[in-house]
């Protein structure tokens, strides 16, 4: 539905960042939705915007107070922080010191200072104060940049809560940990930190980095003893699925204040897609070990969550731990799912799993309506 | 039937106050006499055979308990006191 929004005043949106390579980050002041979007003269903002028409993707609605990115080269608008999105996540770097064989966001050495700055600006200007995810690469790899980022977002009064994905290795540095905690003392942060093995051998093998287990565990303990809220994450692959209960034994031994354990099915994206055959293990085969791990977690007082599993692969005893988690722009339901009565409660599959990556054996048939019902 | 038995306790093993605390608990129907020598104490137990045996056994057991407490907890005594005081102060300051 073409929706020619004639923006009369420059006040309808406000530039928040000018140093991006090929576009603008703007804070918008009114609703804009699918179709064409006209930007009138913002001549004094950036000269490279010569053309004034941008295309908005299907099913995207942007609201007053959202942060959007106008990609000048591709004439496209994409959402950065949107009130309509189920999840808002900002990428602050693509550099990393781990090399997980299943990495969905493979690392590179691209310059990232602008990513930290833009993320800070976006958070500071965004109208909403719901939780924002921070990911990478490894967001804390460059400690100074990360501290700068935290300082920048402290300059506004909102104290936006954050969900930060990190391998935790930087937090083995007690001084750095102290600095971070000082800068975030008034902010609610959930630290999402992966542990893929119950010992150094397995974990380091999964993350492709020697010494990772030590540093991650030290980091986890430093954060945990500071009573920080930790979401421990385990990605389940052929290498570690049988050891899930032992990972639970490890975390219940070492981390008294871990808030929750997220057990995650593989997302066939990035390197996980490339190595899919060697990594994937059908959910059905995982469940026995997941059940044991979740039981151990529960009786020790740690909560558990299952992510990225199609609902039909989760037995009823584990349903209460299930999260409909695949983010909006990634989910996909094969035709087979159209007759499933539980479709609306299910996160479906990753759109990256279309084709050979979709494991039909993981779909169970008993929740489907029959023609006669 | 009566009997008398003596126990000798080295002064280097136990200080006077704790020694006297141990003697304190000996059953009063057992006749007890304490004599002090230069480097050791002598306790003389006398009375009914069964009573004397029992009291000596209790005394030895209490002596052992004392040694054990000393060995097991001495090293951390100061630290434990610090922990408690610090925790109490924390309760007061959170208020």
């Amino acid at each position, binding site marked *: 539905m073409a929706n020619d929004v004639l923006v009369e005043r420059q006040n309808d949106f406000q530039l928040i960042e000018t140093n991006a390579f090929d576009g603008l980050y703007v804070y918008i002041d009114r609703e804009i939705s699918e179709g064409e979007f006209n930007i009138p003269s913002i001549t004094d903002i950036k000269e490279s915007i010569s053309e004034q028409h941008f295309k908005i993707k299907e099913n995207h609605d942007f609201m007053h107070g959202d942060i959007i990115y106008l990609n000048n080269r591709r004439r496209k608008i994409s959402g950065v922080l949107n009130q309509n999105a189920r999840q808002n996540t900002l990428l602050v770097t693509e550099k990393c010191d781990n090399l997980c064989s299943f990495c969905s966001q493979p690392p590179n050495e691209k310059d990232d200072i602008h990513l930290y700055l833009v993320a800070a600006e976006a958070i500071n200007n965004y109208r909403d104060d719901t939780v924002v995810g921070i990911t990478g690469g490894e967001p804390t790899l460059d400690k100074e940049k990360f501290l700068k980022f935290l300082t920048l977002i402290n300059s506004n009064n909102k104290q936006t809560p954050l969900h930060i994905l990190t391998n935790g290795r930087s937090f083995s540095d007690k001084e750095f940990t102290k600095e971070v905690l000082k800068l975030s003392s008034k902010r609610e942060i959930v630290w999402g930190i992966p542990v893929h093995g*119950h*010992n*150094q*051998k397995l974990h380091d093998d999964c993350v492709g980095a020697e010494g990772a287990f*030590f540093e991650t*565990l*030290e980091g986890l*303990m430093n954060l945990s*003893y500071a009573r920080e809220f930790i979401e421990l994450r385990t990605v389940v692959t052929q290498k570690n699925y049988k*050891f899930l209960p*032992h*990972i639970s*034994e*490890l975390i*219940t*031994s*070492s981390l*008294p*204040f871990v808030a929750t354990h997220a057990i995650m099915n593989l997302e066939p994206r990035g390197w996980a897609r490339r190595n899919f055959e060697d990594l994937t293990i059908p959910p059905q085969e995982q469940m026995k070990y997941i059940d044991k791990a979740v*039981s151990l977690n*529960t*009786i*020790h*007082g740690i909560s558990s969550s299952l992510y990225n599993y199609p609902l039909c692969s989760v037995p009823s005893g584990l349903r209460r731990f299930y999260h409909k988690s695949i983010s909006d722009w990634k989910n996909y339901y094969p035709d087979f799912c159209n007759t499933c009565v539980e479709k609306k409660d299910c996160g479906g599959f990753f759109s990256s799993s279309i084709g050979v990556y979709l494991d039909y054996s993981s779909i169970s048939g008993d929740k489907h309506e029959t023609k006669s019902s | 039937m009566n009997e008398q038995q003596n126990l000798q306790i080295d002064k280097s093993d136990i200080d006077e106050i704790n020694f006297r605390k141990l003697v304190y608990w000996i059953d009063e129907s057992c006749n007890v006499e304490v004599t002090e020598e230069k480097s050791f104490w002598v306790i003389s137990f006398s009375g009914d055979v069964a009573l004397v045996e029992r009291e000596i056994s209790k005394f030895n*057991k*209490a002596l052992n*308990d004392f040694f*054990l*407490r000393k060995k*097991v*907890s001495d090293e*951390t*005594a100061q630290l*434990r*006191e610090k*922990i*408690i*005081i610090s*925790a*109490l*102060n*924390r*309760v*007061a300051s*959170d*208020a």
Partner: protein
Amino acid sequence: MRELTHLPYNFRRLDDNFVISNYAGQHQYLSEDDFTNICKSDFEKLDSETLSSIESKSFVSPVDEVELRQRILSSKLATRIYSSLQPPGLFMVVPTLRCDHDCNYCQVSRADYNAQGYDLDEKYINDIIKHIDFFSKDYAKVEFQGGEPLINFEFIKRFVSQAKITLKDKDVSFVIATALGPITDEIIEWVDKEKIDLSISIDGDEVLHNTNRPSKRINSFVNTQHTIRKIRSFYPNVSLSALSTVTRLSLEKPQAIVDTFLDLGFRDMFVRPLSPYGFAVDTWRKLGYSSDEFFEFYKELLDIIVNYDGELIEYNALLHLNRIFKQSNSHVDLKSPAGLIFGAMVFDYSGDIFGSDESRMLYKTTGSEELILGNVSKNPKDLIKNKNLIAMLKDSFIEVNPGCCDCAYNQYCGADPIYHLSAQGDLIGDKSKSFFCDLEIKMFDYIFTKYYSDELYYRKFNEWLMMS
């Protein structure tokens, strides 16, 4: 195979099996063969599951990981101690020592119904609440004890009303421990309106209950039964909990006790042994029992409960399970350092402040002033500096008490200095002669054995653990 080395742990034999435990609070149940192989470092003789478990739980460690594992152990120990030293959450207030029952094991040395001078003066209400505000953090549970608290109902009403105002920024709950003698419809209505919980003693069926807990004024059992039924029918939102004190007379009647609880609509119960306080000290010969006798009774009772087809929880077992799996500090009587002040505070009818209910009971029979930690009319800060409190607490670290230091259960058990002071005249006591220790060991032995060898108990215990 990578080279593995031992880390420190304690162990205990349970017939043909062993249980080992460490400062990380973890345990492992092992066959005798497995235990022997571990001790001899014959790790290749273990199956992979057992080996992975003892490694994950830091009983053994690859040689190059030892430093990390040591940090894990010491940090977890520090956490357990730290968690035990959090601001108190339980505050007991004694509105009166007067009572309308004549329980033969009365632990509190009650006063006669018409006696003078045993009521808490209302002028202390603000001071008490000020102390509660000072010592609690975000949460406070106020428990009215006695005597029979409802005899001084006016005090309770005024107290609750004032507390709800002063402590409005905290999460406050109230419970009245009562034998229900003075209960009236007015009181029940107030309890319902103000969302007060009731904790009731029910020792067993009518004969057992009335023999243990007679009253000159009423038929205690019938009154209790009638009141509970009335509350359940007309005031279903009032939360009721019940406990049974075990005397020699109870030992023959585990089924009757369970049946009574079920009949009165309870889905959980707390069964506790006698303690050496108050009148129980004098009547021990008649009412008391050996730890073996108690435990035979308890095993039978637990078996009845576990086999019950429906929801029924026994709190003594659950408390021990929570200690084993979560090192939970919710029960003030089973923690280390001891729960004096850091578990509970007691404001007696005289205005004196004690660090536990047992302390005030012991004071009643001995008059030992050292047990009094403060007074409500004084500044709360004075209590922090009390030398007796510091002395009592600093020796209640279970890791350095003889007898406890090598016990496989020391991360799960607790220090009870007041018990040992009462029973043996010494805060630490000689655990080899301690009824408390004996009972706790039997309890832990039994819980571990049943959990790992009895399918039904395993399932039931896990259910209870997941509910709490």
